[in-house]
């Protein structure tokens, strides 16, 4: 038995190394993937610049009405807003909110949804039924409404915004991961592990989880972009990050008052959102094609 187990592990490890090598190769062959990587690298650089070189008090929130609503110039490449603040500095500084909210909410909902999905799919039966019916109810509530309800109960700030978005995302991930687990569960290597007496936690951790990883990564990459849009939407409504903090959605909300005569107030923050989400979507699509080439049309 022992010998057989070792042999199994080796075969599996071997397969998975080959698998990820193939995924990597397919990923790098994809032009869209490289474009997405480039864009994301630029955004991360911009964010880092904001973290290290932009001062919140003097460059982000300090008002200077004498230079308000200036159109783009050398000194202010994206112009200034209604309070005379430099829009480029605010966008660079504000990138941290979107990235932080997007990644935190995605990781949190992946973790919770993944746990629920794994448990439901692995144990099946009654546990599966109860958990998934519960998820069905959550899915029946439109996620924006759920987020609005949560923020309205807990109050508008960044942490509550993350909680609100996470709650809306969990059932979707739970469903995806449950079905991934179900398709893996019946594989022989899992049965072999059960046969040699592996514990549930051990089997989930060593066999099920690594094999759902591909699905997880793809979902997560696409999920971050979606969460960034959701977060900026709630901030736009005044239910997330509040002005004067330069969250992109909040900037758009402030800028809309001046849309008629100073459209640059809404154009640049919006572009920042689009480019960020586009980069993440490009990566997600490319990863999906790389992980499962058969899905590609």
């Amino acid at each position: 038995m022992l010998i057989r187990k070792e042999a199994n592990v080796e075969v599996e490890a071997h397969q998975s190394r080959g698998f990820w090598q193939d995924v990597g190769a397919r990923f790098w062959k994809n032009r869209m993937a490289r474009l997405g990587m480039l864009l994301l690298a630029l955004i991360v650089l911009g964010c880092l610049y904001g973290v290290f070189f932009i001062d919140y008090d003097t460059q982000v929130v300090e008002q200077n009405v004498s230079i308000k609503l200036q159109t783009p110039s050398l000194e202010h490449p994206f112009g200034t807003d209604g309070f005379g603040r430099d829009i480029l500095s605010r966008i660079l500084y504000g990138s941290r909110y979107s990235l932080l909210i997007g990644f935190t909410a995605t990781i949190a909902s992946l973790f919770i949804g993944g746990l629920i999905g794994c448990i439901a799919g692995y144990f099946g039966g009654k546990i599966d039924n109860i958990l998934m019916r519960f998820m069905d109810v959550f899915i029946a509530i439109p996620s924006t409404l759920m987020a609005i309800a949560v923020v309205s109960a807990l109050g508008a700030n960044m942490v509550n915004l993350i909680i609100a978005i996470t709650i809306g995302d969990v059932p979707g991930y739970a469903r995806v991961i449950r079905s991934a687990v179900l398709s893996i569960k019946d594989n022989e290597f899992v049965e072999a592990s059960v046969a040699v007496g592996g514990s549930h936690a051990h089997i989930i951790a060593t066999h099920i989880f690594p094999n759902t990883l591909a699905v997880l990564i793809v979902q997560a990459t696409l999920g971050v972009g979606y969460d960034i849009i959701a977060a900026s939407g709630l901030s736009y409504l005044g239910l997330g990050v509040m002005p004067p903090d330069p969250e992109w959605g909040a900037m758009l909300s402030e800028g809309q008052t001046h849309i008629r005569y100073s459209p640059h107030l809404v154009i640049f923050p919006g572009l920042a959102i689009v480019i960020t989400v586009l980069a993440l979507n490009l990566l997600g699509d490319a990863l999906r094609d790389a992980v499962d080439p058969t899905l590609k049309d």
Partner: protein
Amino acid sequence: MHKFILKRILMMIPVLLGISVIIYTIISLTPGNPGRLILGERASAEAVEAMNESLGYYDPLPVKYFNYMKNLLRGDLGTSWRSGVSVIESIGERFPTTLLLATMDIVLTAVMSIPLGVLVAVKKESLLDNIMTVVALVFTAMPSFWLGMLMMLVFALSLNLLPATGSESFAHFILPALTMSLLSVAQIMRMTRSSMLEVIRQDYIRTARAKGVSEQKIIWRHAVRNALLPVITTMGNNFGWTLGGSVITETVFGMSGIGTLLLTAVRSKDVPLVMGCVLFMSFTFSVVTLLVDISYGIIDPRIKAEYGGRKG
């Protein structure tokens, strides 16, 4: 078919109950003193206390929920703490705006995305296909409120073709509906495309080709009907987004629908109104999902037959 519809309606009841429990619980967490909100700053502490007592504010949560549901079944969603107007009346007043917006969104989406999706599937890897792929990518990355502002900027403020804000006339609905649908067009078109490509690979399409059926007929008669099944489900699910998204779109275009009603309620901590709006929209979404399920049964004979539909 009746059996099928009945079964679906019965299956919906526990979901609706579950929705109400979750939403009631979450919104009950809202801090604040309803008596003070209703009576204002100058009311005496005793009056506030009496008001809270009469509202059942101090009852345990299950009792409050039970009372709320009892009233709900009688069609009473309570009264607004701010205006004193009945919640169901406010919703009834605002609902037509949101409903019209959502309907226009769905219709525009279907009309634009399905033919386009079929076309790019048939002309796979053509110039048009590649262009639409890029367009779809960009649109999926766009937040609705930003697209809304751009549309307003171009069509209302620069070209003066349509009104920018408000919901007084039909013209006011065009830009908001277009905004919402353009975002779903990207998704539904891609979905129709991949669904079509999947169907075209099926054996029964090859069978039709082997019969000598023309390519035109194969696409529209054999492929599209099969390809639309998953697309319809997605469009039904998207209705949830449409309702949630209407909060944002109505805000951008200053329309007086349920979305803006909800937002005002949230900002003024008007708990009965928030609860009423969220519940109402979630219930509406469930009803739409039900309708989608039923229409699925009509399109797909396999489901129709399962529930003893017409035979022979």
